């Protein structure tokens, strides 16, 4: 709610209404959760809770984390590595759960906001603005707190998943979790900041009768986009920081979040909020990319279609290749499709 609320500078009611809407989504997401959680890969004879003792005929690997922390999308040596998780159900399991956590933090912060606004004098504009800033900052901190709680929960869940799996490998890595959690978080915050706008953007009117900018809808959309991206990257950063006890990464996430939310107080001077947010997003993107195994070289390989030219053997093509990157993208796409067909 924090950053979204600061958009117009006048959002007083939305927090609470969003919270009400949120409850509907909560039940929905827990329902989906319940539906997918029964898919744990255990033999039907042994219920998950009782699957502690080894069952003859099955091999269990306890405590050996030999599996990749990385998600191998197109692994070739499947027989000797942990089973590649299907991207569908388990990712879909984490997104709504992450969204649920975001919703709880929204609920709490809108509750605080509601109480503060009700308890204060509505005519005191300076106080109201102060309250708004306080509400936004409080909401940011609350969201980050819930991000941490979610991380804790996921750790426990992964331990559980490892215990249940046949080969001692978690079907989903913590990095995947981080990514999926960030996306869920971002989508939910994006949805909540856009839903009201979209409903009103139907028309017939457009913003501006009180002198606001004509580009309100467009800038709001861009702001929402940057927030969704940022939440995704922050998720990766934050989880990485937790996992490796690098507290400065966590602190950087909180500071960035506060900075982006704070920059929306420049509105309606949209340049003042959009430009810094996009710069921050670029920085966060680079950082998150580096943390999740990316490097400048990888990127270059990707852009210069190193992998799509099967003849390439690690020797990067010249930077002045006229076909790449666009040509290689198209080429790569086509080949990717053909490859998929062939695999089937």
């Amino acid at each position, binding site marked *: 709610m924090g950053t979204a609320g600061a958009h117009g500078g*006048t959002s007083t009611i939305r927090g609470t209404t969003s919270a009400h809407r949120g409850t509907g989504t909560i039940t929905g997401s827990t329902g989906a959760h319940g539906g997918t959680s029964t898919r744990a890969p255990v033999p039907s004879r042994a219920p998950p809770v009782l699957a502690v003792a080894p069952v003859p005929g099955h091999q269990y690997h306890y405590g050996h984390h030999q599996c990749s922390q990385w998600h191998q999308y197109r692994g070739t040596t499947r027989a*000797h590595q942990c089973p590649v998780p299907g991207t569908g159900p388990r990712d879909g399991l984490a997104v709504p759960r992450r969204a649920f956590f975001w919703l709880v933090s929204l609920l709490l912060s809108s509750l605080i906001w509601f109480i503060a606004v009700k308890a204060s004098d509505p005519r005191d504009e300076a106080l109201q603005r102060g309250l708004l800033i306080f509400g936004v900052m409080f909401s940011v901190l609350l969201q980050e707190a819930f991000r941490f709680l979610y991380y804790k929960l996921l750790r426990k869940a992964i331990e559980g998943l490892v215990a249940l799996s046949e080969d001692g490998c978690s079907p989903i890595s913590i990095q995947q979790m981080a990514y999926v959690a960030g996306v869920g978080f971002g989508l939910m915050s994006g949805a909540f900041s856009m839903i009201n706008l979209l409903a009103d953007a139907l028309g017939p009117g*457009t913003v501006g009768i009180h002198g606001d900018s004509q580009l309100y809808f*467009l800038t709001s959309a861009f702001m929402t986009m940057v927030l969704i991206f940022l939440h995704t990257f922050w998720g990766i950063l934050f989880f990485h920081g937790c996992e490796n006890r690098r507290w400065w990464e966590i602190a950087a996430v909180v500071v960035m979040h506060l900075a982006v939310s704070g920059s929306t107080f420049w509105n309606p001077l949209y340049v003042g909020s959009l430009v810094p947010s996009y710069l921050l997003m670029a920085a966060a993107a680079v950082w998150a990319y580096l943390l999740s195994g990316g*490097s400048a070289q990888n*990127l270059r390989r990707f852009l210069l279609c190193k992998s799509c030219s099967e003849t390439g053997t690690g020797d990067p093509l010249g930077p002045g290749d006229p076909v790449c990157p666009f040509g290689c993208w198209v080429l790569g796409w086509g080949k990717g499709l053909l490859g998929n067909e062939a695999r089937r």
Partner: protein
Amino acid sequence: RGTERGDEGARPGQSTQCWALPSFPGSCQGNSVERKIYIPLNKTAPCVRLLNATHQIGCQSSISGDTGVIHVVEKEEDLNWVLADGPHPPYMILLDGNLFNRKVLMQLKGTSRVSGLAVSIAKPNPPQGFSPGLKCPNDGFGVYSKDYGPQYAHCNTTVWNPVGSGLSYEDFDFPIFLLEDANETQVIKQCYQDHNVPRDGSGPEYPLCAMQLFSHMHAVTSTVTCMRRNSIQNTFSINPETVCDPLLDYNVWSTLQPINSSGKVDREQEVIIVATRIDSHSFFWNIAPGAESAVSSFVTHLAAAEALHKASDVHSLQRNVMFTFFQGETFDYIGSSRMVYDMEKDKFPLRLDNIHSFVELNQVALRNGSVLWMHTDPVSWMNESVQTQVRNLLDILSNSSVGANVTLQEAGYSQPLPPSSFQRFLRARHIPGVVLTDHQAAFQNRYYQSMYDTPENIRMQYPEGLSPEETLEYVTDTAKSLAEVATVVARALYRLAGGANNTSAIQADPKTVTRMLYGFLIKMNNSWFQSIIKPDLKGILGDVPQHYVAVSSPVNTTYLVHYVLANLTGTVVNLTKEECLNPDKTPNAEKELYDYAWVQGSLDPNSTTRVPYCVRSTVRLSKALSPAFELRQWGSTEYSTWTESRWKEIRARIFLVASKELEIITLVVGIAILVFSLLATHFINAKADVLFSIPRDPGAVAY
């Protein structure tokens, strides 16, 4: 700014019509984005659809509201822009009140370049007069027809309302709203000035200021159609949705000497009926001030009733007097036709044969000099016996005015009766009767059935700087002159009823008249009305009075006429609350003869409590629903068939509309970003092994 008002919309009658406007108060709020886009117009009155046996009249919008770019029309030349030149049709016109006439509206009706109309009130009232009513009001439902005085039918002899444009009886397929608040009109004009004024001959640039009006009506075609649909719905649907309701309310009546309301009076008993109408109309829904067309006469009537009740020997008078206040008379005599119908069908304590004579007061405030005209029916003059009785009636009235500041004159035998409730009684019997008005031929009232028929129209003037309490008690000249009329009427009624004593003691009280005028015309929610109504009715008192008959009953006017009449003609009896509320359990209450009302009393000057008491009077209500609906003859040409359409939502708002280019740019940018992000996602996903692998250090990844 005139935008941040929360609690409006509580106009009189609206609380009882909440089915019609369920979202009106709620729509004032909205979320923050909506507040950035829209300015709701809260003080508006729509024109709604009414239907009769053959036609639909009024206005409606499409189901999702009609939108158009605002153009302010203050001179007739401005219309050219709307009708021909403007590049952004359809237009929503903000029309100056002085241009709200038939010529302009017919021009607008004939074009598709107009999506709606918002009318601002002209201040001062248009000097040339304005009446959206008909030139010949209630034509076809009075007594004159091809069988009865055919030369008088259809106002052939006298056109009663020459300024009548008949606008109220036209059908418009676009919404028309009245802007009641000058501040809101100013906000719209400002928005127009800022965005829509054509510059240098070329059209204005986007964004443009636009307005949206919602007034979608459910009923169509005619009463026959909509009532048939109602009955089909009621028969077959589990959840019937009514599309129209008959206009209905209650007539208020009381008698000088109590009569048994559940039985029948003796055939020999003679009763003099005094009548007025208590409803009015205007082009717009729930705007019906009716100062001259209704209030002046019924206030005079009430004052006369009070004066007559104060006479010492009223209970020994030879004849009884019945004070009758008809509702819905504007719409083809709903109230009087129902009472006549009930009398004919023996559903009323009185029979038509009991009526000795009929005196009607009809528009009496705008007298020229001090002349009050006595209108009689020229056809009745042909009948010998009736002629004698009418002559007698006129003589008594003339004699009663001797010494008073009112001159009664006969309007002449060659002229028919003006539109009056008496005509409905004449249709049934040759009853001797007279209609008292301030006009000899055409109406003095230039604002008949319009929103300008206000206190100013009957010259009610108050000095500056009075508190509401002082204004309530201040005796205006209008009140004094109406009190004189009331005195003359009361004295004449005394004589007619057979009273022989000196009538100089019978005197109407100007103070009562001025309080009634204030309450019925300026502020219903005043201390006097508060003190004379039932405690549970105190919520109904809205601020600005209006006298439209409406479809939910009783309306405020009916309630208030009831309680004012009870207060003026009744007596305070020493009963407890329980006894007063249950008179049938109270000994000696004579429930058949009297009506008991537990009223909340006036406020103690030093505290906030009221001292309630019990009032006993002979005031009764009788249903004023057209017999056409009782008989299910929805195509009736004899009885009123007016119905009001239902609607879900009535509101108005202004906002800016963006150019098509901006809308397209926004959409294209959105689609481009979507496509780009899908492609990017696909490639990143496809090449994840390249992007996220660490080829230099494969040992970090344990396979």
